[in-house]
């Protein structure tokens, strides 16, 4: 087990290097002077610009800038943003926001997705199944942007069921509406996947064996069908969690949640290579970590691929 984890971690290192290098190169190649964004239309005295340039190594060659950034990241010495914010502070404030949003959204997505997917798959072609398929089609067809704006206006502004934006009301109140919308949008795909997986498992021979053992339908479903049908769904979990980070940019912006997505978007707009790379590294690490966990979980769920 330990060796397996170590091997995975070592294998991730070159990918991490390429990811960070690629992201840094992309940001570096973006046109425009990073410090210009700070100034707006106003002129900044040459001396001020020069001081900032030196502080952020902006005049060094690309590879030096990259290495310096990576050194800062690896030594945990994150420094400040161009605007002067302490990046470590920012992370301390923002990571919990994104985590709360992501986790709550996933709770909704997985609860709805699994329940409906399981039920629909098990009672295939029943009215719940049919209405579920229709509902998922509609949900998948609604652009996320529409859903976020509409939900904010209807449930926040008009009905006042949820806070409109921000995190003032704390967890979970402030996070409910955006999480629900993300969860609903993601639930459609998950429910369909779960349903398909259940449908495929329902016909398996071992399910017949279970029935031949005289087991009740509930027991057949929960003990025999589900653990097997979950396997493909679990692999989806990793990709899905990793994807949430990117998707949060729009959600965080519309609902004014000060999370990593907004930080990232801001850093891109300001061409802060260091911050973008730091956040990409975080995203990458969480991707690797989540995937490792998912693979380990998979191993627990499926003895056939157990990593010893």
């Amino acid at each position, binding site marked *: 087990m330990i060796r397996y984890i170590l091997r995975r971690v070592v294998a991730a290192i070159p990918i991490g290097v390429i990811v960070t290098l690629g992201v840094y190169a992309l940001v570096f190649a973006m046109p425009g002077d990073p410090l210009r964004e700070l100034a707006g239309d106003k002129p900044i005295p040459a001396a001020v610009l020069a001081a900032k340039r030196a502080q952020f190594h902006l005049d060094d060659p690309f590879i030096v800038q990259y290495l310096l950034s990576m050194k800062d990241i690896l030594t945990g010495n994150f420094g400040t943003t161009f605007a002067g914010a302490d990046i470590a502070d920012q992370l301390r404030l923002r990571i919990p926001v994104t985590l709360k949003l992501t986790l709550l959204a996933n709770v909704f997505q997985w609860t709805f997705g699994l329940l409906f997917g399981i039920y629909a798959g098990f009672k295939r072609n029943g009215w719940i199944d049919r209405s579920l398929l229709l509902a998922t089609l509609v949900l998948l067809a609604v652009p996320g942007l529409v859903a976020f704006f509409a939900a904010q206006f209807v449930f926040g502004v008009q009905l006042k069921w949820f806070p409109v934006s921000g995190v003032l009301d704390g967890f979970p109140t402030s996070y409910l509406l955006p999480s629900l919308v993300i969860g609903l949008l993601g639930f459609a795909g998950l429910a369909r996947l779960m349903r398909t997986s259940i449908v495929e498992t329902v*016909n*398996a*021979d*071992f399910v*017949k*064996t*279970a*029935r*031949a*053992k*005289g*087991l*009740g339908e509930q*027991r057949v479903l929960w*003990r*025999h069908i589900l*653990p*097997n049908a979950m*396997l493909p769904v679990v692999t989806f979990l990793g990709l899905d969690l990793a994807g949430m980070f990117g998707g949060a940019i729009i959600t965080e912006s519309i609902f004014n949640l000060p999370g990593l997505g907004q930080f990232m978007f801001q850093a891109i707009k300001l061409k802060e290579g260091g911050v973008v790379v730091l956040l990409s590294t975080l995203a990458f690490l969480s991707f690797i970590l989540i995937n490792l966990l998912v693979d380990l979980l998979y191993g627990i*769920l*499926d*003895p*056939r691929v157990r990593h010893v």
Partner: protein
Amino acid sequence: MTATGEVLLKVDNLTVEFDTPRGPVRAVDGVSWQVRAGETLAILGESGSGKSVSTQALTGILEMPPGRIVSGTAEYRGADLIAMTTKERRKIVGDRITMVFQDSLSALNPVQSVGTQIAECYRVHRGLSKKDALKRAAEMLDQVRIPAAAKRARDYPHEFSGGMRQRVMLAMALALDPDVLIADEPTTALDVTVQAQILELIAELQAERDMGVVLITHDLGVVSDVADNVVVMYAGHVVERASTAAALDHPVHPYTEGLLGSMPSADLKGQELPTIPGTPPSLRSIPSGCAFRPRCPIAIEECAHDVPPLLTVAPGRDAACIRRTTLAEKEAV
């Protein structure tokens, strides 16, 4: 060979259809048979002949829909399994009537240890505690001659060899000491030597428990080795029903005859093995009249008119062939 035990399971005029996008398809048509305590009944037929469907239908594990029982009864000690509620049936199926399937790798839940799967029978039907059930499961594994049973109970199906896995299946089926064991091609996927061991094991355990065994197979060799009586099925119909010895010695139906002919034997050494010409019909396009007609060497025009009735040609011997039944009656007279 005796047929003296109590009749445990009696299937009468069972008809099963499937709904397909192109309309209903009759997979089992008016099938009747019975099995007594201590008896081994073989249901013989090619794949698609409806032999598995009939047993799956009466135990309620057939998927319905698309499957549908059109008519018929299946009485266990006088109680009709088909008419009773699912709940009532579950008290019998899995407890008094149990099943063993062909492909033990896919028939066992891949993500549960075999011990757990066997223990589940005790937990559900006997209400044993988890610990007791697991203990009994290990004992059961021991009974089916799995070495180091207590330890292996914790292993998963993929960690067993094919023969061992089939023993696990058997252990699971016999855990509750059933009256009837339905073994659906239990040895098909196994090597010949392993096959013999398993059949021997079934016979041994059967003798211990005075159990009725329904053995579904396409292998005439298996039938001749272990079965007391045999039911031959073709395209959803029972075409011949007899004691094994009688059927092997004097097959009445040309299909049975054909099967016998295609069995390798010492007599035919060095010769090309005869086969039944043609292929079994698709259930969607069963020929009119006798379904075997297109492949039958003695078919005549009348065979296309009606489905031949299953007629008694001798005590305990029935066959469905208008040519042979009439012939047999003449000879008998």
